[in-house]
């Protein structure tokens, strides 16, 4: 083996995205940042091209869900760790944002007090300690990242160090979100009990319910989603991403190759949790409410369903899945509300039986057959 042989192969995927994909990314950016605002704000309401506020709000909400689905794909699709508790990170980000929005109400609440209504109702005289920073937008935005990140880090550290895997890990994450939900349901916790936070009036001193503000939040959400997509793509295309997939396929081999799986799992787990937290923070001002329902086990399972329906391990798939399932949900609940759960159940069975790679898998198969 002394002679240096010419390399027989290309050095693997080094390009972040192909030409087509970059075109798609820029088209999406253009649509989110220019097309939608113009169609909604500039085109008059009577016109056939006008995009209703309802549609903008719906798409804005689904884009938040899509960020969660993307985060789920990183941890489940690529690393093979199924989390059924991602709702807790989403809700924590949402609550951090909600606390700030509650403080922005000022004295415009029912009780005309500086304190949020629920605290007045509970006869509290001073803010609890964890509301200390709630007046500062910057501090709360930091908490949006830090709280889910820290929880994920501590939880992940102990779970991964104890080598908890597979279904056991899923069950523990489910228990985590359930426990958090029960905690947040309690009035004493200081998060508004089962009503959560709502009736927001302002953000950064500007009224929150105007079409301009709604559009701004929409654009920020869209750009965040696209940014996260490119970031996730960079992650999975790097050697780091290949180690994640290696952990999914044969963790012991990864270990005996000299990598510490704990660090890799913990890193992607925290990244995934932080993405969910940011999604939650974007969700709350657009939807106007956050309550412990977001931490219910079912909400977390839904995130996994979006990823599965769209196609795991593809990044774009879970985004498509989030749009498809939530689009269907909003259509069904308007037209035939009683059939929604049946549809969801049937969809899940159909995907499991016929589409192991989700919608994206189906599309790719179609393309291959055409090419063949």
């Amino acid at each position: 083996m002394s002679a240096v042989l010419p390399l027989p192969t290309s050095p693997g995927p080094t390009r972040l995205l192909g030409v087509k994909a970059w075109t798609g990314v820029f088209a999406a950016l253009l649509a989110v940042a220019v097309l939608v605002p113009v169609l909604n704000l500039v085109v008059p309401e009577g016109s056939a091209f006008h995009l209703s506020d309802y549609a903008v709000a719906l798409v804005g909400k689904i884009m938040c869900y899509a960020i969660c689905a993307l985060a789920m794909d990183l941890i489940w699709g690529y690393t093979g760790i199924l989390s059924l508790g991602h709702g807790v990170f989403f809700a924590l980000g949402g609550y951090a944002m909600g606390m700030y929005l509650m403080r922005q109400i000022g004295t415009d609440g029912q009780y005309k007090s500086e304190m949020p209504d629920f605290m007045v109702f509970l006869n509290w005289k001073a803010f609890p300690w964890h509301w200390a920073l709630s007046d500062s937008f910057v501090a709360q935005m930091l908490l949006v990242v830090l709280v889910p990140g820290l929880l994920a880090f501590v939880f992940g550290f102990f779970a991964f160090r104890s080598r908890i895997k597979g279904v056991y890990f899923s069950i523990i994450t489910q228990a985590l979100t359930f426990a958090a939900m029960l905690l947040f349901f309690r009035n004493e916790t200081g998060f508004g009990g089962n009503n959560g936070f709502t009736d927001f009036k302002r953000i950064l001193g500007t009224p929150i319910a105007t079409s301009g503000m709604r559009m701004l939040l929409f654009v920020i959400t869209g750009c965040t989603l696209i940014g996260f997509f490119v970031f996730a793509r960079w992650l999975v295309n790097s050697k780091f991403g290949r180690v994640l997939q290696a952990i999914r396929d044969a963790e012991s081999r990864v270990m005996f190759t000299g990598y510490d799986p704990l660090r890799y799992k913990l890193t992607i787990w925290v990244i995934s949790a932080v993405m969910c937290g940011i999604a939650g923070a974007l969700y709350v001002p657009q939807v106007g409410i956050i309550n412990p329902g977001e931490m219910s086990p079912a909400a977390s399972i839904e995130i996994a369903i979006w990823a599965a329906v769209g196609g795991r391990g593809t990044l774009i798939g879970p985004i498509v899945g989030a749009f498809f399932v939530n689009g269907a949900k909003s259509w069904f609940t308007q037209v035939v509300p009683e059939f929604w759960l049946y549809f969801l159940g049937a969809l899940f069975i159909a995907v499991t039986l016929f589409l192991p790679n989700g919608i994206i898998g189906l599309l790719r198969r179609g393309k291959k057959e055409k090419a063949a």
Partner: protein
Amino acid sequence: MTPDLMKAGAQIRLEHEKKLAASAGLSGGRAASYGRVHEPGSLDLAHGAILYLDDITVSFDGFKALNALSLSISAGELRCIIGPNGAGKTTMMDVITGKTRPDLGKAYFGSTIDLLRLRENDIASIGIGRKFQKPTVFEQLSVFENLELALKADRGVRASMWFRLNGEQLDRIGEMLTLIHLKDSAQRTAGLLSHGQKQWLEIGMLLMQDPKLLLLDEPVAGMTDEETERTAELFLSLEGNHSLVVVEHDMKFIGELTQGKAHKKVTVLHEGSVLAEGSLADVQANEKVVEVYLGR
């Protein structure tokens, strides 16, 4: 010991130290030949042994998988280990690679590195590579990517995020692909390879890590005769630069590995300890070994 004896002893010691201080040079008063520069954490082979197991005992629910096992492998040696099922061969590898912690005993890599204090990935990083009984490769990644991950490089998270193959590393992967006869399958998904090819890929991945000691658990299981022969050739070419421990059932393969070299040792394990050690012929002639293998 009486007080006057202690006093006398102290006196002698003091005088000795005075003498030392008077003759102290740069080596701190010790004979210079005693001092060797040794970096902590690096492999110390000055005493000839690369792996040293002493009195290792592992029990699972009362069953002793390893029973006071002692074994020493020299640097550059190719050692074959045989033994009937349940003799403790795989458990021994588990202990060396950090997967199983023994109840008793010592395990050293070189003269200074205590393996029992390290975790699996640290042990891999300091130069012990392991091939599993069942070929274990990253099935969803391509052959090329499998080798790329195994390539010796910084194993940290951030380093992996920014990792780029340089020309030298590309060449190294190319050489390895040729060596393991998978050049034409470089872009194939590893899961699609045949059993024998997976074995070769795994061996290739081990070699990419540049290990000093290779532990090979039944490396030719499921290989064709031709592949087995080629594997034997490969291992023999590694001998000297690497130390190899080969656990095998296939006596023909062991014959090929030890052929023509009577000094090459074969170790027979039985019920968790060493039953016999010596050249293949000696071992095969050993009555105890025959008894264990044939149940007489």
